[in-house]
């Protein structure tokens, strides 16, 4: 028999097997989840959760689908957090420090408490990527924030009311579109396709009998 532990879901006690995650423990207890459950594997950020182990001071945050239950765990989920997302036109947006000042001026009110970094469910250095955004250093902001799943826990802890994941997303899009080096082999290929370079070849393949296609496939030269 599995070892059982006590967990308190929204304050109510349930006995559940110790090998479950917080998410599966809720289901074991009888919840049919609708909110707070998306990918079930650490990518979508739907399952932000706050917990405290009875008797301990520290308040912890996690993704419910990625965290194993512990005995005497008090759990509250945070299935929605009102992040601020500013609307902009990616085609015409400026890519300098100005844009942050215009769209997310609250980042300059950061008091340096580091609560965001301490609370990040992905263990990212959130305060540092916000500092990079303040300086208009989009590349660093993009790099440091890359693994963000936008669960919003950082923002729930921020005394300055910053929507960190949205700031980071803006920086990444600007970086991806404007600042990262351009890809010449991609541009060349687009021109070739535009000019119909492969058209005849492709039409030919589409007409070929299966036996000939098998021949071609089975004798492909494979790049090392």
């Amino acid at each position, binding site marked *: 028999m599995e070892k059982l532990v006590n967990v308190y879901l929204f304050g109510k006690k349930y006995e559940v097997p110790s090998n*479950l995650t917080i998410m599966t423990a809720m289901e074991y207890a009888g919840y049919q989840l609708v909110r707070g459950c998306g990918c079930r594997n650490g990518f979508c950020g739907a399952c932000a959760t706050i917990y405290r182990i009875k008797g301990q001071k520290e308040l912890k945050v996690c993704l419910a689908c990625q965290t194993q239950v512990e005995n005497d765990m008090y759990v509250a989920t945070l299935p929605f957090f009102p992040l601020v997302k500013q609307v902009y036109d990616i085609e015409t947006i400026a890519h300098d420090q100005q844009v942050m000042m215009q769209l997310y001026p609250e980042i300059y009110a950061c008091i340096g408490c580091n609560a965001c970094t301490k609370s990040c469910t992905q263990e990212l250095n959130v305060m540092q990527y916000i500092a990079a955004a303040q300086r208009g250093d989009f590349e660093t902001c993009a790099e440091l924030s890359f693994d963000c799943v936008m669960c919003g826990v950082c923002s729930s802890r921020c005394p300055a009311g910053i929507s960190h994941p949205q700031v980071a997303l803006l920086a990444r899009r600007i970086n991806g579109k404007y600042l990262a080096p351009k890809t010449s082999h991609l541009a060349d290929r687009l021109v070739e396709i535009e000019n119909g370079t492969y058209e005849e070849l492709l039409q030919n393949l589409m007409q070929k009998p299966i036996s000939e296609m098998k021949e071609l496939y089975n004798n492909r030269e494979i790049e090392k």
Partner: protein
Amino acid sequence: MYSSDIKELIKKVEARREYNTSYEPARMTAEQKEQLLATYHPDYRADQFELLKIGANKGEKVPHELAEMLQAHSRITADSVNLDDVAYDVDVLVIGGGGAGSSAAIEAKRAGANVMIVTKLRIGDANTVMAEGGIQGADKPNDSPAIHYIDAFGGGHFAAKPELLYKLVNEAPDAINWLNELGVEFDKAPDGTMITTHGGGTSRKRMHAAKDYTGSEIMRTLRDEVFNLQIPVVDFTAAIELILDENGKCAGAVLMNMETKELMVAKAKTVIIATGGAGRMHYQGFPTSNHYGATADGLVLGYRAGAKLLYADTLQYHPTGVAYPEQIFGALVTEKVRSIGAKLVNVNGEVFMHPLETRDVSAASIIRECSDRGNGVYTGSGYGVWLDTPMIERIHGEGTIMARIPAMHRMFNKYGIDIRYEPILVYPTLHYQNGGLDIGADCQTSNIENLFVAGEAVGGIHGRNRLMGNSLLDIIVFGRDAGRSAAEKAKNTDCCKLTLAHIAEFEAKIREAGIETDKVSPLLLPTYSHGNPKRS
């Protein structure tokens, strides 16, 4: 953390690592592959399938679990809703907020249509956000759309619809460029060259990636753009039935609020089904890598309204699902782990196959190793084989794992396994729905006018098996096209009288065929009790 029994077994892997790293295992011949698939691949287990008794694919085989949903009752009758009480009236209704739905909505909007998205969970809670490995596109000088065509056609067992595959490969470079222009951060060398790798079954290195968060990076960018274009997104709302007009054309959907269960009518000139896959149907009892809402809803909606399915009997079992620890059982270990050098190793420490065969072949080979050959590693609850991740840094140097597959490192590290130093245990997991609704090159279903389909809900783009990286590609290529075609078609459509008559017609067929069922469909969400004795 590994148990001491498992740690003991790792020693055999370590002992042969040096040799295995440089060892080049042979690829299988065409005959060897056929034989292997027929004996070990789940798609070939006749007792797991049944013939459909009603509908457009009557007489064709599908998995039992799918047959049950396709031949179930509607969740409503025609009287449950008042079709004159229209909650939403739009040009284009997109059902499903994943990558296909979002790119469709973006292009429909750009084409001037009044478009909205309804989605069952939140926008982005989808298979798209989970894709790790990458997206294909033949944009390197040694590659071409024609070579891409041959790879995908062969990998799909020569069953893809040529006109669809043509679009997929020919529009691939443009799709990559479209994403890049939206701000997706692809892995690039300092001079801008895309860093590309092989995927199973590719003959050129054309897998583009954004670390191992490729789908996540694509999804969050598309979602941001949907919001920038101020396209209405109605979340936690499922489509549970299509609405037709008197002439049998698609003209909207009945929606259900997932929380309050309220029903609403959405009227539309054209409808795009972009509801994704079916992993949560747990075919043959397999675990799955898919998101919570992957329950084949789009197939059910379309089928009941009369649409045709193609290749609904073929599923993709990803060879490398997590076999241990059990908290993440069935979760995906991206193919990229093998693309960048890790090999599959059995309990004796032997490399038993080439690591980059196509997925169906790899899955069958692992099942053979763990069954008849008796070379599986016992995990405490089942069997798996080793994926020797420490090889990666032996080949490409220290730091490669954190730079190229950080999500994988994070996933295992939470359970005390550091994949830089310890190998991981894998077994096939239900991953992708190869088949789906049958469409033409304009993304419209072959037999219901004004009903379009994009993404994993489509059948026929890949044939009977899909190569890694061709699905993220298809959701962009066909998503964009579905959006454009649906917007164009909406211009010439004047919606007339709405009807739900097809529900009663389907009900009659169920009766006539003597099908006895108390099931309703679409499933919408699975229900889990995780072995709770009081609830099973």
